[in-house]
């Protein structure tokens, strides 16, 4: 009966092992169970033995399954728990093998030198059970020794597993093992040495152990089942959460090129619901213009181990283009050492389109503001054009008069013509500057000497300043470091700040309206430009508001000048702010990075 149970359990676990080869524990368990069954069989046979000779032979062959049992039990413990001193395991194996060898070398068997007779005792149900009587061999002592060793081994394993934090398991298996080994030891000593007369009942002990192990292993199977369903549920939740957030999740196995993707990724990239996704398929969906940059990013991430973060366009269908923001991490799979990239994709099409639209609007606004500035500067503009025109007219008419005289001096006339040509060019340059200001705002970066630009700009706006009765002073540091920027934009910024200062001072009663423009090197990395006026000052609560577009305290004007200044300064990596002066008026400060200094 006991045998049947063992065989059944053994069969089950054999099947488990066949199914999952990596689990040695299961195999060993089945072998162990099978051997216990065999042991039980032999015990039964010995109990039914009629003659001592029969008993002797049986006992001899009895040791085979015993050996299998002991060894498989020891190695099962090691495989299942993953701990257990290796030397102990080998020692036990060695001892038992010795026992087996001795057993077969001896004339009779291992345990007894001679079995003289059989005693028959009455058992519970009136059965007759044979009990051996005879002289034990000296090396019988090896048996209990091996059992003791096994006991020590199990104690050690139990303790280690307990300490590892798995008390439940260690108690169940360990506890069973201890208890029944002790029984076996006791029995073996007592019976063999003749203290107690009773048949061999090892199988009973080991059955206990087997049951304990079976229970544990079954629980494992159950646990695995539970884990698997928990995992499925967890996966389901992640997928749901990701889809709700419109996040696509993906894992790319670099070695074989396959990509695991969630449904959101399929939607974003225009992949069908069922097709197997590879990295090539993904790349084909990416816009050809963005592809080189994406490849570069991937290579860099894989090479340097830094996070991958990039934006690109995806043509999910011939007519549809989506903007995708992808972030990922490269790592090595612990399970099989493959390199993988795990990441997310977000559909940012809407956001991107809005960004592009607002950038276009800003550009348009800047252009409008420039046109408006030009309007404000009409006085200066007219003046700048007028001077060359005046010179040309007077020169030409003078030449006419000279030529009308007798003995006309032709060299003088030649000089006059040269001057006329030069003045014409001057006028042309002014016009092309104007045209550049009105152009669509392409940015050309070059090295600029801000001091020189300030001087030029002041000259340009000179006559307007004088009309407004404004004096301009400069405090420009000699050898000011160059900045990197667009000349037209920088000039626009300076002009706007000057105009703003003029407006602040118009209509005030001060005797002297003065603008001071100062430029100096502030640190190794920055220069500072300060435009100071003697006007009304700025109410403290408006110190930031004045930079908002369309904010103005004047009846005319669009309120764009300072907003455009801020945009320009920011585009150049600088800062612009305003502060009231201690005495009168306000100062606008501009910080700009020096060309060549680290941004």
């Amino acid at each position, binding site marked *: 009966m006991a045998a049947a149970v063992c065989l059944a359990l053994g069969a089950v676990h054999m099947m488990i092992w066949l199914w999952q080869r990596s689990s040695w524990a299961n195999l060993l368990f089945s072998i162990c169970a099978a051997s216990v069954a065999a042991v039980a069989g032999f015990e039964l046979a010995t109990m039914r033995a009629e003659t001592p000779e029969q008993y002797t032979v049986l006992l001899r062959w009895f040791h085979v399954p015993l050996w299998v049992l002991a060894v498989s039990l020891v190695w099962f413990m090691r495989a299942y728990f993953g701990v257990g001193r290796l030397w102990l395991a080998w020692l036990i194996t060695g001892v038992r093998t010795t026992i087996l060898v001795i057993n077969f070398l001896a004339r009779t068997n291992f345990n007894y030198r001679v079995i003289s007779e059989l005693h028959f005792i009455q058992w519970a149900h009136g059965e007759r059970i044979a009990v051996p009587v005879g002289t034990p061999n000296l090396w019988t002592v090896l048996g209990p020794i091996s059992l003791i060793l096994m006991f020590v081994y199990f104690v050690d394993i139990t303790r280690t597993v307990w300490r590892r934090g798995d008390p439940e398991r260690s108690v169940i298996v360990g506890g069973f093992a201890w208890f029944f080994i002790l029984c076996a030891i006791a029995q073996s000593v007592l019976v063999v040495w003749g203290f107690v007369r009773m048949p061999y009942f090892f199988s009973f002990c080991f059955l206990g152990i087997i049951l304990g192990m079976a229970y544990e292993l079954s629980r494992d199977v159950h646990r695995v089942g539970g884990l698997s369903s928990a995992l499925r549920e967890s996966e389901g939740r992640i997928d749901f959460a990701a889809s709700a957030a419109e996040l696509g999740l993906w894992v790319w196995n670099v070695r074989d090129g396959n990509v695991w993707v969630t449904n959101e990724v399929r939607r974003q990239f225009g992949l069908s619901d069922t097709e197997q996704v590879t990295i090539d398929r993904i790349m084909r969906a990416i816009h050809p213009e963005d592809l080189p940059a994406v490849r570069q990013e991937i290579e860099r991430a894989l090479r340097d181990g830094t996070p991958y973060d990039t934006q690109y366009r995806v043509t999910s269908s011939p007519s549809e283009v989506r903007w995708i923001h992808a972030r990922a991490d490269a790592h090595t799979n612990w399970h099989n050492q493959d390199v993988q990239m795990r990441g997310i994709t977000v559909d940012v099409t809407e956001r991107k389109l809005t960004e592009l639209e607002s950038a276009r609007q800003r550009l348009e606004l800047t252009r409008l503001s420039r046109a408006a500035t030009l309007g404000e500067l009409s006085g200066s503009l007219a003046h700048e054009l007028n001077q060359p025109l*005046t*010179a040309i007219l007077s020169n030409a008419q003078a030449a006419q008069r000279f030529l009308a005289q007798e003995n006309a001096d032709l060299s003088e006339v030649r000089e006059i013509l040269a001057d006329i040509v030069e003045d014409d060019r001057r006028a042309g340059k002014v016009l092309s500057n104007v045209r550049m200001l009105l152009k669509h705002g392409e940015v050309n970066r070059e090295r600029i000497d801000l001091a020189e630009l300030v001087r030029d700009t002041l000259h340009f706006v000179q006559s307007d300043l004088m009309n407004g009765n404004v004096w301009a002073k400069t405090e420009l540091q000699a050898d000011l470091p160059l900045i990197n920027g667009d000349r037209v934009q920088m000039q626009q910024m300076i002009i706007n700040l000057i105009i703003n200062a003029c407006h602040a001072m118009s209509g005030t009663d001060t005797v002297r309206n003065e603008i001071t423009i100062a430029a100096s090197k502030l640190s190794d990395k920055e220069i500072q430009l300060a435009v100071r006026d003697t006007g009304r000052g700025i109410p403290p609560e408006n110190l930031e508001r004045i930079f908002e577009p369309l904010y103005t305290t004047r009846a005319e004007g669009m309120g764009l000048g300072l907003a455009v200044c801020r945009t320009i300064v920011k585009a150049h990596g600088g800062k612009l702010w305003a502060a009231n002066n201690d005495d009168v008026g306000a100062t606008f400060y501009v910080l700009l990075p020096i060309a060549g200094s680290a941004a």
Partner: protein
Amino acid sequence: MSSSRPTVFIVDDDPRVLKSLTRLLRSADLGPVPFSSPEEFLVQHAATRDCCVVLDLAMPGLNGLQLQEAITARDETLPIIFLSGHANIPAAVDALRRGAVNFLTKPVDDQTLLAAIHEALEKSRVAWQAKLEREDLQARLGLLTNREREVMDEIILGKLNKQIAGDLAISEKTVKVHRARVMRKMDLMSVAELVRLVGRTENRPPSVSENQSG
């Protein structure tokens, strides 16, 4: 007095414009004297009988109108012509009211400019003449004693010797003596001449830049 070549002062801070205007005036046989800053001009120029000044309105430092004041304060016979790059009506009106001869816009046509200059030069000559006469009168009057002066004033009023004697409480004979001395000192032949001399200088506007509004 021999007619000297006219002198036209030009003041403009833009060197190219200054050069071209100078050339133009030279080609018209006027004697241009260029200055690139108002301060320089104020310090270095000297008025002559036949001169005027062409001023650029928008120059850094002293602006055109302030310069006008400075010139008229110093030199009542120097006529001013303004040249401006803007058509700034209020400034123009202001300038003309303060006595500028003309206000022209750039770019300026040679005929326009030369006409204005000739007008200014004529004004300058007239003013110069008046100034000479005034100085002459002052010199002559300086020769008279107080009593002689009083008698002269009475003569101009057309009073007879007898009346003058009564007004001044002196004898008629004394009056006659004073009268003769006045005529001799002032180098005049007749009372009519005296009246004309004093009347002319007193009725003529003393400087070119007097208020011309009606």
